[in-house]
Structures are given as structure tokens and as C-alpha cells.
């Protein structure tokens, strides 16, 4: 069997350094398999998050050869194994240990977004009627597995560290799913403009590119939200009418 070298970032608050591990690679292996093999063979304390190993839970996010990826869905055959494969933790979040980052900020952000608020039920038995075409676009957003790779790649967070002023692509998708939910009657446009920092996004579409669920984050979620905010707050005609009518 062939061997390959993996250059894995190790360490924590006291400093990070790349360490090379060489292990055997077999047919169909993904990056996470290699990490597990290394863990079992030579580095039992190598910290890594993972769960389903099938691209459904979004736990094993990392940067493989510099690209934000799910390790469980990145096949070794798609990588150049003649060179060491680098595996690094996500950069938009502080490292706890090795490949594990502190993503708790994301959970705090989500709590701030106004929750789902449905209209009164449509039927006497307390249920609603929605047609499939109306739920299609929301279902696209709800495919999100919260791997936070879109947050990781977004330069507003990654390079400019605007975590206090900008909620990031994941939570624009989340907000879009709520705003476009056929039953929802809550209003989040004011928050999007003010506290969520929607304006910081300059639609470079990096988030869309790295999304393992292929959600068209920028085109289907962020841009329509920007349009709604613009319609509400920056429409000259509307501004004039509201001035006249008070």
C-alpha cells in the first residue's frame, strides 16, 4: 500500500506548529480516515471533532491544503499525495486544541436572531397549508448542516474579525430561511441592517463556493435580503411618502 504524509497543525493557546505524520493510504479513503488512522497509530491525543462521517452533521470542518473542507467528504484521490497534505484548523475561530476550534460565537449569534413566529393556523385542526413551490427555496436553506465553513472563508470574519458587527453567511442563510418561510410573520429587516451587518457583505461568493451542501448562499439568501433591506430603508419614493404621511 502507498504511504502519504499529512502535515497537521498541533497545539493550543501556547502556540501552534505543524507536525508531519506518515501513514498508509488505501482505496476510497477520505482525509478524516487518515486523521483517525494517525490517532490510533501514533497520536492518540490528536484533537479532532467528527460525528457522522457522511457529510450530514458538519462537525469535521478544517482547512485541507488551505481550502475549507469537511474532512469526511474530502477524498485522498482528489489531493496530490506526492506532497504533504496540510490539515489546519479553521482560521475564523480561536483554536482550542489541534484541529478543534472554539465555535461558540456562532451559537450566541443564533440566539440573538428573532425566532420563528407563525401566522394563525389555516385549518380548524391547527395545521397549515403550504404548497411545495413555496417551500422549495426555504428547504434549500434548511439543508445547512452548520459546519461554519462559510463563516471560516468569509473575509469579513476571517481577515477583518468583525464578529461583533457581522453575523456571517451562515446566519444570513438562517435569517433568509425565516424571512422567506411562508408562515413566518416576524420582521427582521431592521436587525439585518443595523446589528447583523448585512452591508459588510460585498458578495464575493466565497461562502457559496465552499458550502458542502451546495446552498447558493449569496444569490439565493444574501442578495434577496439586501434587496429587501434596500426596499425598506433606501427607497426614495417610500422615504418621501413616509415623510409626507409622517
Amino acid at each position, binding site marked *: 500500500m502507498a504511504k502519504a504524509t499529512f502535515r497537521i497543525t498541533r497545539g493550543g493557546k501556547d502556540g501552534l506548529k505543524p507536525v508531519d505524520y506518515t501513514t498508509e493510504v488505501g482505496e476510497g479513503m477520505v482525509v478524516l480516515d487518515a486523521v483517525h488512522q494517525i490517532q*490510533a497509530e501514533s497520536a492518540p491525543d490528536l484533537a479532532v471533532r467528527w*460525528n457522522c462521517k457522511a457529510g*450530514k452533521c458538519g*462537525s469535521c470542518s478544517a482547512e485541507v491544503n488551505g481550502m475549507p473542507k469537511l474532512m469526511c*467528504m474530502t477524498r485522498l484521490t482528489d489531493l496530490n499525495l506526492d506532497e504533504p497534505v496540510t490539515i489546519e484548523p479553521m482560521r475564523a475561530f480561536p483554536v482550542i486544541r489541534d484541529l478543534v476550534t472554539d465555535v461558540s460565537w456562532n451559537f450566541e449569534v443564533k440566539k440573538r436572531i428573532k425566532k*420563528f413566529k407563525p401566522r394563525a393556523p389555516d385549518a380548524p385542526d*391547527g395545521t397549515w397549508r403550504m404548497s411545495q413551490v413555496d417551500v422549495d427555496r426555504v428547504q434549500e436553506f434548511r439543508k445547512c448542516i452548520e459546519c461554519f465553513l462559510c463563516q471560516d472563508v468569509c473575509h469579513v470574519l476571517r481577515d477583518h474579525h468583525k464578529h461583533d458587527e457581522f453575523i456571517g453567511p451562515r446566519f444570513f442563510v438562517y435569517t433568509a430561511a425565516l424571512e422567506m418561510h411562508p408562515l413566518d410573520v416576524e420582521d427582521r429587516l431592521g436587525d439585518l441592517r443595523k446589528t447583523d451587518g448585512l452591508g459588510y457583505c460585498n458578495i464575493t461568493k466565497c461562502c457559496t463556493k465552499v458550502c458542502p451542501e451546495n446552498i447558493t448562499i449569496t444569490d439565493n439568501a444574501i442578495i434577496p435580503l439586501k434587496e429587501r433591506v434596500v426596499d425598506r430603508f433606501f427607497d426614495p419614493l417610500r422615504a418621501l411618502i413616509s415623510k409626507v404621511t409622517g
Partner: protein
Amino acid sequence: MKTEVQIIEHDVLVIGAGGAGLRAAIEASATGARVGLVCKSLLGKAHTVMAEGGMAASLGNVDDRDNWRVHFADTMRGGQYLNNPLMAEFHAKEAPARVNELEAWGAVFDRTKDGRILQRNFGGHRYPRLAHVGDRTGLEMIRTLQDHGIHQGIDVHMECTVVEILKEGGRVCGAFAYDRERGRFRVFKAPAIVIATGGIGRAFKITSNSWEYTGDGQALAYRAGAELMDMEFVQFHPTGMVWPPSVRGILVTEGVRGEGGVLRNKDGRRFMFDDIPENYKSSTADNEEEGWSYTQGDKNSRRPPELLTRDHVARCIVREIKAGRGSPHGGVFLDISWIKERLKNAPEHIKKKLPSMYHQFKQLAGLDITTEPMEVGPTTHYVMGGVRVDPTTQMSRVAGLFAAGESAAGLHGANRLGGNSLSDLLVFGKRAGEYAAKYAKEQKALAVNESQVEELVRKTLEPFERSGTAGAENAFVVQAALQEMMQELVGIVRTDAEMRRAIEGLKVLRQRAKKVSVEGHREFNPGWHTALELENLLTVAEAVTICALERQESRGAHFRDDFPKKSDTWSTFNLGIERGGDGEMKLSRVPLPPMTDEHKKIIAEMA
């Protein structure tokens, strides 16, 4: 020096944040109780996300002949009548309300033409019954509960593992835990604890379960004095991926067959037609045409044999493989691409109905399921057994200790129907949360015994002290040895001789587990985590083996090569496991709870 232990107080502590745990936490906190929710992973990553097909509830949106009585009868028949009938009744009656409630909390199910929740066919369910979202229903469910729950004032303790349940005077008073990120110790003080930790799949080598499924809840409850039941019934899902090796065991949803996918051997034969059990003959199609029209919604057709119960389909697949009629990598073929002969736009249809399956095979196996058949084989999927609980309150025999979802026993009997798990989580998660909160209100807080906590700290840190000692074992190696052995000796086809070897093997593994050493320190150290989970895995593995050895018949998911027939002598009791006074496992026969006259009537009518 005394190790620092953080004390956190709750009224109700829920262990596990999958469907059952989240639902329990939501319900308990809605009553005003202070609720803590502990999970080994990040919130929203629990194994519930892997559930694909849907949640069973007799909404009757697609076929209005469906109602709770049919669902009850299907569940009992599927479980070979070892189910707790009252739990099966509650489940069938309450599932529709639980599903509608999810919609009120923001879930977006696939729709019928008239705008209601769409339902799909699944094995063992007489009518289309599974509310679903493509093939990612579990994700929809967990996200809905999570996003609703975070606004309920629940304290979530992520990446935290409970090591032991603490008791005082026979009652639950808290739990001892450590946080995985930093390795710090915590004591949760709580008069009521809900165990919702899921299953035991990691006791086997080929499994669809994530690393978290190490039987923690079952083992915690067992050590706390609760009884386990039905542990011999481990469900092997008929269709897991078999190739490439690194993905072996990953689930291929039953939805593939629900949408018209067929099983074939290497000769192209639809072997499921060759063996249709007697009690399902009248409801199963006897030709391909009828089977196809059933999957396309024809109410007058009977289901194709691919949609027989999971235990049966898994055994038929094993039979084909053992007879040398399997696929190149030791499975059989599951083909959905053939529907192009029947449907225009078949590839688009498949991608729409089974998006994650398409994605999973494309990315992990380099295979396009819209043009080629998949290779599949059985994979350890679910344990019907678990903590024995009261059907109404979900409380175990230990005062204050509740269990719900996969970690509890009773609803599914000898075999679970697909789709009955997600509804189980909701129905009994809610009940557990409700009754745990009620119980907690009636209790006075109990003190936690400090010397017990100190002893637990010492025990938890022991593996570090063995670092560098002679004969030290690696936790991953011992875990792998256990998985190999259970797969080989207590797997899908069982015999007396093999299971006796397993009992001996478990003794050896226990000794090895005592020598496991850990390198490094306490911060996010997977070696340490794996070492600590070993005891739980060994406990559930032993319970499974003891029960499986005892049950000398084949029923539901439990198949004995030496006793291949179902036997009436074994139809009147469940097998229970408890910790004896000497610390050894004690086996007992628990008489089946009586059925009400109504239960009997329904079963007689529907048979």
C-alpha cells in the same frame, strides 16, 4: 491537592441532545423547571441528523384510511409482539400531534398537492405514513428542536460527558461529568435526570452510528440500579454502504426502496420475491408490476417485498451473500436507476427525492445512483433494547431516573419499523420531560456525597497514571478489538458456541481495558475520551451477548442459526438485565405487560 469540581444546579438534567433529549428539555423547561442539557458533541450534531427517511405518524394526509389503530397494529406486528402495548398505543396516538407541533416550530416538511404534510411509504407500515423532508428528515427535526429550544432558557452544556449518575438514599441527586474541551470536572445537582443518549452501535465494527453511540445511557442507568431490557434485539439495517472500505456501514436510506429502488443479486434476480414471510404474504406484492405501482401511490397495490421489515430484508441479503450471489465487494445491488424505464426525468426525480443519497455516493464512492446500482449490505443501526421504563412517565425503577428514545426499551419489541424512531423521540421525549419536571417539583434537593465525587475524580484520571507502565494498552486498539469480536460473534447470525466465545472474550477485554493508558493532558484528548467510554461499551456488549445467548429462538432482529424458528415458549416475556449484589450481570425473565381488550381487538382485526 484536591481537584477542582464545578457545581451546577438544575431541576432537570437531560443527558443527550438528540431528538429525545431536546424534546424532553423543551417540555421540562416549558413547565418552568430549570433545565440543563448535556451533550458530548456540539448542539445539533447528534446522531438524529443521520435519520433520513422520515417520522411515522398516522396523519392520514396521503391515505385517509390510516389512523392510530393501524399504526399501533403495524408497530406490534413489526416488534413480533414483544413491545410494551401501552407504549405502542401512546406512540401511535400522540405522534400526529408531535409532528404538527414541529411544523408550528418552523419545520418545513415536503407537501402534498393540497398543501398538507406529505407522507411516504416505508417498510412494515400499511399506509404512506412518514412525514419527511427529502432524505434529510433527521436534520430538519433536530434543527427545528434546537432553534426552538435555544429560546426556552435551557442551559446547554456542550461537549460534556457524564461519567456517573449520583444517588442518595436510593434517589437520583445529580451526575458527575467532565467537559471535553478543557477536561474540567463538573457535578450537576438535579433531583431528576433524563437519559437520552441514543444507542450502542459502536460496540460493532460495521455500523451506521457515530462515535457517540457508546451505550453511555444504558450503562449509566445500569450502574445506577436501573434494569435493562430487550438488549438482544439489535437492528441491522439492511442497506449500508459496503464500498469503498472507509465508508463501510454508512446508511443508505430505506427511502431508496420506498421510492421504487429494488434489490438484486449478481445474477440480476430480485431475490426478495423468493422469501416472503407467511404473516406478510397477504400484504406483499407477488409481481414486479404491482410493487412498482405501490411505490407510485396506487392504493390498491400491495407493497414490494423490498419493503418488508428490516430484520427480514437484512437476513435475505446475508443469505444471498453467503450463497455466493453477492456483489463484487460483498454486498448486493440496490438499484434506483432502473426507474428511468418508467419515469421521464428519472435522474432529476431521484436527485429531488434522494438528494443526500445522490450526494453521498457521488462524493464518497464516485458512483452516480441515477445511472448505476449501489452496492449495499447490512449495518448495525439501532438497539431496540435499553432502559426499562414506566410506559406513562418514562421513569426507570430508580427514583428520579428517566429514559427516552433509543436509550429506553419497550416501544419497538423485537424489531423497530423504519420511521418509528423519530416519532418515538418526540412522543417519549415529551413525556419524559413532562414527568421529570413534575417529579423534580415534588422533591427536595439532595446533597451530593463529596467523597464519592473525589473517588470518581480519581477513577477518571487513572488512565493518565498508567502512562508509560509496562503492558499499558491503547484505548483505540482495545475498542477496535471489541468491535471486531462483537461483529464476528454476536452479529446478524448468532450461535451458542460463538456467543460463549464472546462471553470469554469480553472477560479478556475487560482486563485489557483496565490497563488502558493515556498520553498528553486533559484538553480535548480523544485518547482519554475513548478510554473512559470503554467501560460503557463493554457493559452494553455484555448485556447484548448474555441476552442473545439466553433467547433460544429467532425473532425479529435476533436470529439464531441454531434455533432458526420463532418459538411460542419465548413469546411471553422480555429479557431483563440488572446488576447483581456481587457486581455481576443478572439475567431475568420479565413477563410481558398485559394487553387491554382494545389492543387485542385491534390486533385481531388487522392481522
